[in-house]
């Protein structure tokens, strides 16, 4: 019995597929198929490729000409709509336009007038859908699947591995993890949760034999200016970064669920923990004072405090 890790770069992240099995060639072939699936999703929903479905929808914004989408895109748009409704509008895949004014590399605060001009271009209610046709009501609007694309890819990659007959392993796309099944000996995998203020350290860990783990935090992409941290998670109501939590990690049956729950929790601020409990999520949250809060659903694996052994 071997344990093989297959590392690759995708979706601007370091990714790994780990599989336990007898025959390394079989594991490698399954991993190749799963990596191909990750790359397919990356290409299909990339904003950077002019021919991607997302680019075509965005290019047709405000023209009155709807874009026809396939089953998969349609299902993802349904999901985006449900997340918008269930988050009281906080999770909004039209808020990607804020990237035009928030530059985390140049560490600059946006010009308030320019930010103000962007707000009317946001809002899921301006996404017009009829059957398989999609149209963005105003020119300049954008859809961005980045809010759940990586998590969705982790789930799909896991399904490809299962389809290829694999039972033991996990998919880790830059910290968005979907477990295929326990180690070959039946034991659990242990995943560390990054310390939000110390890059090289973990603040907690969790053992898993199935399901998914995803984290959101103010440490992923941010800049500091005059002692204030500005992170990449932006509130669509104001266009400004959220404050309140340094990190929220969630375990759920699927990675898209874990990812959406952790992001929405970051956006919910002081209501985050109530929200997560209502959504029956198991979570590990760290506030600005680095105080930790966790809650496990019955049957869920416990989050363990402290760095990985």
């Amino acid at each position, binding site marked *: 019995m071997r344990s093989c890790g297959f590392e690759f770069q995708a979706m601007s992240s370091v990714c790994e597929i780990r599989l336990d099995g007898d025959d390394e060639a079989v594991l490698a072939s399954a991993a190749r198929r799963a990596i191909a699936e990750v790359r397919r999703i990356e290409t299909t929903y990339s904003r950077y490729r002019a021919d991607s479905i997302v680019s075509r929808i965005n290019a047709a914004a405000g023209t009155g000409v709807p874009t026809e989408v396939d089953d998969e895109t349609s299902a993802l748009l349904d999901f985006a709509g449900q997340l918008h409704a269930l988050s009281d509008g906080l999770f909004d895949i039209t808020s990607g336009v804020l990237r035009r004014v928030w530059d985390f590399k140049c560490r600059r605060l946006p010009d308030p007038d320019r930010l103000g001009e962007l707000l009317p271009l946001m809002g899921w209610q301006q996404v*017009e859908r009829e059957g398989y046709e999609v149209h963005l009501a105003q020119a300049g609007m954008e859809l961005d699947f980045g809010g759940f694309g990586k998590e969705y890819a982790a789930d*799909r990659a896991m*399904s490809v591995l299962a389809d290829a007959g694999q039972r033991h392993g996990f998919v880790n796309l830059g910290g968005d993890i979907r477990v*295929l099944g326990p180690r070959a000996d039946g034991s659990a995998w242990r995943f560390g949760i990054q310390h939000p203020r110390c890059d090289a350290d973990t603040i907690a860990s969790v053992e898993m034999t199935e399901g998914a783990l995803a984290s959101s935090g103010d440490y992923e992409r941010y800049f500091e200016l005059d002692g204030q941290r500005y992170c990449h998670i932006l509130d669509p109501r104001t266009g400004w970064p959220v404050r309140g939590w340094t990190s929220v990690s969630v375990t759920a049956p*699927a990675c898209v*669920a874990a990812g959406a729950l952790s992001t929405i929790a970051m956006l919910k601020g002081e209501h985050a923990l109530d929200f997560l409990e209502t*959504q*029956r999520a198991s979570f590990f949250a760290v506030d600005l004072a680095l105080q930790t809060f966790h809650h496990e659903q019955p*049957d869920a694996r416990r989050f363990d405090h402290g760095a990985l052994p």
Partner: protein
Amino acid sequence: MAATDRRAARADKAGAIIAAALSLPGVMAPLKVFAESAPEHGEVAVKYLQYKDSQPGLERIKVKAPSVYVLAPLSPKWAVEGSLVSDSVSGATPRYHTAISGATPRMNDERVAGDVKVTRYEERSAYSVGLSKSKEHDYDSSAISFDAGFSSDDNNRTWNVGVGYASDKISSTNDITLHERKRTAELMVGVTQAWTANDLLQANLTFNSGRGYYSDPYKTPDVRPDKRTQAILLTRWNHHFPELASTLRTSYRYYRDTFGIRAHTLGADWVQPVGAMVTVTPSLRLYSQSAAKFYFDPVYDPDVGAPYPPGYFTNPPEFISADQRLSAFGAVTLGLKLAVKLTPDWSADLKGERYEQRSKWRVGGEGSPGLDPFSATFLQVGVNRRF
């Protein structure tokens, strides 16, 4: 779009986001109970079954049956499995209808049965050959079967075909001159479809055609046709509730044969994990059948008396039976199974079922009159080791 979102908003209920995520395509691996790959682990299971049936005033049959099952993967492509069971049967059954006075003398019998099946797994298909043999002092049975399964490219659909042949030898302690045979052939086709990530649908159609001795040498009067064809349609729907981690398994079975029996079975099991180690499965089965054409009600000849129907000697029927199992009745089975996963490799289970049969419980027609109710209890305990 707007309507969907409003519905979702109203459904601002526990776990709504997880439920929405699980409905995305390809997010949950399909329920592939039928993937065409050789099992990775071997398995040994030892079980002990106790069965007892009764009617008012008569304890009928008791069965004690220890069994052992072994599954051994030989290579990634081959697996062999086999089982051995030894039954000891004791008790008495009515010779006709539910007449206690006419019950057979108390008997004791031993049965030994075994089967072995070899399966070859290919990328998207699997082929198996099975042999089985069963022996008791008045009944020998040998059977052979071939099965093949083919999966679609996405593994969401599997087709199954199977053929089988059985040859039985029948004798009787009642009649040492009785040496009869029965031969049956069977054809099965089936399809299993993963409908969504949480729904599995299955339909199987089986035809079975036999010739030979179908009568029961321990019943009088009992003369049955020497040909029987059976057709069975079995449909199943399993639905998994991810929020509850439970599975509902439902089934409907339709049976008809050339004896004239038509039967319907509705079944439901609820598989509920409790904590990480225990699974509790309550089950309910409802059954109803019509009588065989040659079954006669317990109304006897006024001159000769039981067990002969009126006119039996003046105008003897070609076929006749007073076997309660061929009457029209309905039945309910309630069951409970408790399975405990002690370690990743060791598990144990305990299963109990209670079966109650009544003529008046027949659905869609009158049940056969004049029969006593029939009950059975079934208890099984097992230990399973994976290696």
